[in-house]
């Protein structure tokens, strides 16, 4: 997990909640409870959150604060969940979104 900042020169050691397990497209992954889903995915090296409806192009994190809605995914069956502002929970089922569903094109 090279992307996680273990200790920061100004902010000190990164404090996180407890470790939880979730799935991304069926694969089991680990993250920390309460952090945005997108952060756990980023730490696991996942860049592509969805494919667009018209052109089927990949998208990922863009604004990271819930505005642009580019990072939406299907979470626990619900499409269009903004993963950058949705806290991770144990057992969450996270899926790549194709258009507006989890069904690949």
């Amino acid at each position: 997990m090279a992307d996680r900042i273990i200790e920061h020169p100004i902010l000190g050691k990164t404090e996180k909640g407890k470790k939880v397990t979730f799935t991304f497209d069926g694969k089991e992954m680990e993250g920390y409870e309460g952090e945005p889903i997108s952060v756990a995915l980023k730490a696991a090296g996942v860049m592509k959150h969805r494919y667009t409806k018209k052109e089927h192009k990949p998208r990922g994190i863009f604004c990271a604060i819930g505005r642009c809605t580019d990072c939406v995914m299907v979470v626990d069956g619900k499409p269009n969940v903004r993963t950058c502002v949705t806290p991770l929970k144990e057992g969450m089922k996270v899926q790549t979104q194709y258009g507006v569903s989890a069904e690949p094109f």
Partner: protein
Amino acid sequence: MENIFDRSVDLGEFVPQPDDDMIVCRCEEVTKGQIRQAVHDGMFTITEIRRYLRTGMGLCQGQTCAKLVKRIVANELKVSMDVLEPASSRAPMRPIEMEVFARENN
């Protein structure tokens, strides 16, 4: 803005540009070329562009592309950007689940 706008003003011929296929509205995947063409089709206001092409009507409701669209339309119309009124602001400011919106807790 000049109050009265003659929709028949001559904008010249639509000349394709190399970056016409660039996505401008990320949510609805509307390209620069489509926006420029819409102006030539007579869509002179941001509101008309929006209704014609769905720019700014997607999930983010134009938070990302509003300024970009405005610049393209202003360029095409050869007017300054501040002449163009932005589209209406409408509730909800952020997407909200129907179930949540339906539940009035006070």
